[in-house]
């Protein structure tokens, strides 16, 4: 029983923090969010790959470091603190873990070292409509033909698809008694004929794209995992992805808390720093209380998902719901503590405020996830 980071993880954290402090100033963040067509920096991407961050979780035989998800979570937290934009989570967390867990030897050899070296960008196309992300909502179809399959359908809110090399498409190849049956995952080359991508930009600079699969042909070798049994693979990769979003939130919350505390020390009104006023002081204290709640929940969820613990689904939902609310509260209070300047475009507070909202509403808001926790609670007393 041990709760904490090991020495190596502490080092990773420091390296990541220094790296972003040095290489990702907020001016660059803004440019990447709203002006840069790619929405991320390929130079930074290369440097992160050189540091080994993409391949941290991969075994050494695939050019990885043989580390675990906790190692990656440490880095993800620093990425959130630094407001890193781009396809890191879809590529490394979703794509990386999905292929690592379900890929054939050929697929792993083709994909994992390429991710590790920074030469492959991936994403996943799950939602056929924006209002849901469950199996029953999957209507994109994949019909078998002589050479493989033909995929038809339009996916919404596909993260960073506009720069992806490969897209893991969640499609229906059949049906069963449950909607989860008959779902298959396909690794689709983004440049395949018939793949049409339309970019939509969120107010925090994420690209959540429409991807239309217009009779896109894929081969049997592009199927990830067993045909018709792709949903459990998707679920697991999505669990990793949601925890990664939580880690991003933890990093952002920590930064907002630090900025707000700093401002409260410096800003003088009524001849005293505003941090001497209890209302302001307590807002900052509440940020601390929230951060010290979401960080342990997130790391516990990371451990649970990575070790396949029975409590993983509940842990993920607890973490996501709490992080949703905490990031929202903290960024709102962050603007509040800064007063008028917090409301300006020029001040960086709104970058976090907006990122918090996008994070909150994607892959389950707090009500959605609390319902999952409640279901588990209710089940546990019914069987007791």
């Amino acid at each position, binding site marked *: *029983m*041990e*709760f*904490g*980071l090991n020495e190596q993880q502490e080092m990773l954290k420091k390296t990541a923090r220094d790296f972003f402090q040095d290489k990702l100033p907020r001016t660059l963040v803004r440019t990447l969010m709203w002006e840069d067509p790619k929405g991320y920096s390929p130079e930074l991407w290369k440097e992160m790959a050189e540091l080994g961050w993409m391949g941290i979780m991969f075994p050494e035989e695939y050019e990885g470091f043989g580390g675990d998800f*906790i190692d990656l979570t440490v880095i993800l937290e620093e990425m959130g603190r630094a407001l890193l934009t781009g396809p890191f989570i879809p590529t490394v967390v979703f794509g990386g873990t999905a292929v690592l867990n379900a890929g054939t030897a050929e697929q792993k050899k083709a994909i994992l070292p390429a991710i590790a070296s920074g030469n492959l960008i991936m994403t996943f196309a799950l939602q056929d409509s924006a209002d849901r992300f469950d199996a029953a909502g999957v209507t994109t179809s994949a019909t078998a033909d002589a050479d493989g399959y033909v995929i038809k359908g339009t996916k919404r809110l596909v993260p960073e698809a506009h720069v992806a090399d490969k897209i893991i498409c969640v499609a229906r190849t059949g049906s069963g008694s449950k909607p989860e049956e008959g779902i298959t995952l396909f690794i689709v080359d983004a440049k395949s004929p018939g793949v049409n991508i339309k970019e939509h930009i969120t107010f925090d600079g994420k690209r959540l794209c429409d991807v239309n699969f217009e009779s896109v042909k894929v081969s049997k070798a592009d199927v990830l995992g067993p045909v018709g049994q792709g949903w459990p693979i998707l679920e697991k990769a999505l669990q990793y992805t949601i925890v990664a979003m939580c880690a991003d939130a933890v990093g952002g919350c920590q930064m907002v*808390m630090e900025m707000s*505390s700093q401002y*409260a*020390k410096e800003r003088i009104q009524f001849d*005293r*720093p505003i*941090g*001497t006023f*209890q209302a*302001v*002081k*307590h807002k*900052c*204290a*509440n940020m*601390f*209380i929230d951060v*010290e*709640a979401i960080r*342990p*929940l997130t*790391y*516990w969820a*990371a*451990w*649970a998902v990575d070790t396949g*613990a029975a409590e993983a689904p509940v842990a993920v939902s*607890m973490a996501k*719901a*709490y992080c949703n609310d905490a990031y929202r509260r903290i960024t709102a209070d962050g603007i509040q503590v800064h007063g008028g300047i917090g409301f300006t475009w020029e001040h960086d507070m709104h970058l976090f405020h907006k990122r918090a909202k996008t994070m909150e509403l994607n892959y389950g808001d707090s*009500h959605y996830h*609390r*319902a*999952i*926790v*409640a*279901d588990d*609670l*209710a089940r*546990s*007393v*019914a069987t*007791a």
Partner: protein
Amino acid sequence: MDFNYSPEDEAFRKEVREWLEENLPQEWRRDRYMTMADRDEWVQVQLAWQKKRYEKGWLAPTWPKEYGGGGLTMMQTVILDEEFTRANAPQAGVGMGLSLIGPTILAVGTEEQKRHYIPRILSAEDIWCQGFSEPNAGSDLASLQCKAVVDGDDYVINGQKTWSTGAHRANMCFLLVRTDPNAVPKHRGITYLLVDMRNTPGIEVRPLKQITGSAEFNEIFFDNVRVPRSNVLGQENRGWYVAMATLGYERSSTSQGIIFKRSLEELTKLAAKKMRNGRPAIEDPSIRELLAQCAAEIQVVVLNGYRLLTNRIKGQVPGPEAQMTKVFWSEMNERMANLALEILGPEATLQDDDEDIRRWQMTFLSVKASTISMGTSEIIRNIIGERILGLPR
């Protein structure tokens, strides 16, 4: 990051469970406290349980063997605590000997004080209460006025203490007195005394009734009370720092998480049983969402308990997150108690003999103390703001 216990730990856990099976009678399991009208009867159970644990050698496992404690590793101590909590075992003993003054004496007492007081705490020969707060010194404890004037080999004490839990059952008191009325800052004029309440004339204990209907805490009046100067713990006028050490000793937070998990389990079962608009309350989405929120907050308490435990095992000081635990769980507990009464519905405030109502009504009422005692939520937020975030006073 590892949330599993080692095989040796699990073997010890099994041993503890088996011992509990044989040694903890069903009537002593803590659930029943909530329905027992007679608190004094329960005190006897706690004392008897203390004796059993002492005989087994499982009473104060982290205390040095030479004073009567010892026997288990830190991890085993935690497992013991967890299993006792799971089994609803009563608190061992009464008063603040095991929890507060014992560790304080072990930390700062003289050899003579350790040899004298520690065995008496373990055997329950001494039952301790705390004499800190005064009517005019609550959050601002350093402004306390209870005076101690030197007269030969004694101090002569005059003043009043309040909110002293269990003073009506105690024979000993650890008391903060003002020995230097002119000290600047004022906390430098405070001395920490160990007082024999039974054999010292001039001490009067008056119970104070609480909103729960029982009188668990007290006022203590000191009228020309003579206490030997040798009863100082630490040094004269340095009592504030000893008091801070006392206030720092809290029971292991890993067991706290387990208590709350049990409560949530009971509450969820209650929601399955009780009706709300004609359907079981557990089917109501609002109730479900509030239960889920409690579950997440309780998990935070559990996880922060593990962080504290990891620090203890590594011999490190508690991290800054230790500051948020009390404010966090007390406010969570308040929300949970309110949810419980929502589930119970309008019958929740009746004074009937229904076990569920009595149990949760008592929680709802007592929980209002927990956001005030041991540092109010407001003071703790000030401490977080000032000491952790560096905000100015």
